[in-house]
């Protein structure tokens, strides 16, 4: 990073991106607002919100960081049979398959401990696993497209792809949570 270590220089580099990302995140807030009454009625779904957003953003940022590094090392070719691409895509889906059952179990369990579950465990698990797995697939697509776009426009993927992918995955996480709640609750 070549930014000078002064408040002014750091702010000039960061603030515009932060403001745009805030508008993107308000989009996911508006989606949350659409099913606020459902979330308030079922606390285990409300507990799912931060952990789904966090895990979604993390899955995207980890994949983006790995693809950016592979891109810098020249080991990424964007072909469908590229081993780095395929291996990381498989790992992302496998990570989602391992983590999201724990997300659902944890959200249900904590709500049960707090003494206010009114959804069965199977419903909370169905919501978290369905939204998590579909999220993993979309996260792979978004990351690959964003990394490829950075490459085509000759931008450094480290600067652009990670914040974009993290925040887009946050929003997708909320949208998919909403769809899963519509489907299962």
């Amino acid at each position, binding site marked *: *990073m070549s*930014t000078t*270590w002064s*408040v002014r220089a*750091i*702010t000039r580099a*960061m*603030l515009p*991106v*932060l*403001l745009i*990302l*805030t*508008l993107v*995140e*308000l989009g996911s*807030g*508006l989606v*949350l*607002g659409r099913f*606020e009454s459902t*979330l*308030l009625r079922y*606390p*285990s779904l*409300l*507990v*799912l*919100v*931060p*952990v789904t*957003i*966090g*895990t979604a*953003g*993390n*899955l995207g940022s*980890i994949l983006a960081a790995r693809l950016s590094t592979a891109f810098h090392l020249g080991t990424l070719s964007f072909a469908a049979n590229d*081993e*780095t691409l*395929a*291996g*990381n895509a*498989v*790992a*992302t889906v*496998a*990570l989602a398959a391992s*983590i999201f059952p*724990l*997300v659902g179990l*944890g959200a249900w369990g*904590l709500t049960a401990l*707090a003494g206010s579950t009114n959804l069965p465990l199977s419903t909370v698990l169905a919501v978290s696993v369905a939204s998590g797995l579909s999220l993993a697939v979309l996260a792979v697509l978004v990351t690959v497209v964003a990394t490829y776009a950075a490459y085509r426009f000759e931008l450094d993927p480290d600067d652009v792809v990670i*914040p974009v992918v*993290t*925040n887009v995955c*946050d*929003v997708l996480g*909320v949208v998919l949570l909403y769809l899963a709640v519509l489907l299962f609750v």
Partner: protein
Amino acid sequence: MSVQAVAVEAYREALPALGASLVGGLLAGLVLGGMRSDLQTVEGLLVLVPALLATRGNVYGSFGARLATGLHQGLIEPRVRAGDRRLRAAAAAALANGVATSLFAAAAAVAILSTLGLPVAGLGRLLGIALVAGLLSGVTLTAVVVAVVFAGYRRGHNPDTLVGPLVTTTGDVFGVLFLLIAVRTVALLLGAA
């Protein structure tokens, strides 16, 4: 490397970070679950939650990455000395950007919700909540990031791999916790919504 080898390596490398953010996210969710009455009385607060949480991650993740780069390049010393100009500038910039972005999120949420004809609390209340939450979580996260990155670096850990999980875990927990404190503080000052 074969597809399988790449996948296994990527999986192993990512699992600890995801596990840490899982714990942080669940704790944050527990606090959020306890805020149901606050979310009901302060209309528009839930719409702000993703933006405020993401701001913590974006600002303090970038602050941590900057510290890590500075340590690698020898630009900063891994010691908290009030005299270090670069460290103070980076911390002040993170705090200022974090608070400014939180205030922008509150103002934009009020503008968007009232344009859409949706119910929303007063601008003053949401700005107050964003300010208090942004300041409290900003000061805490700055201290946590500096302390953990410096201590980790002195013990021979790569600061780059510490920053991500650290910020996502503590950012979510402190983000929601200080949001709760901010809502209650502003309610004391302005009266209940």
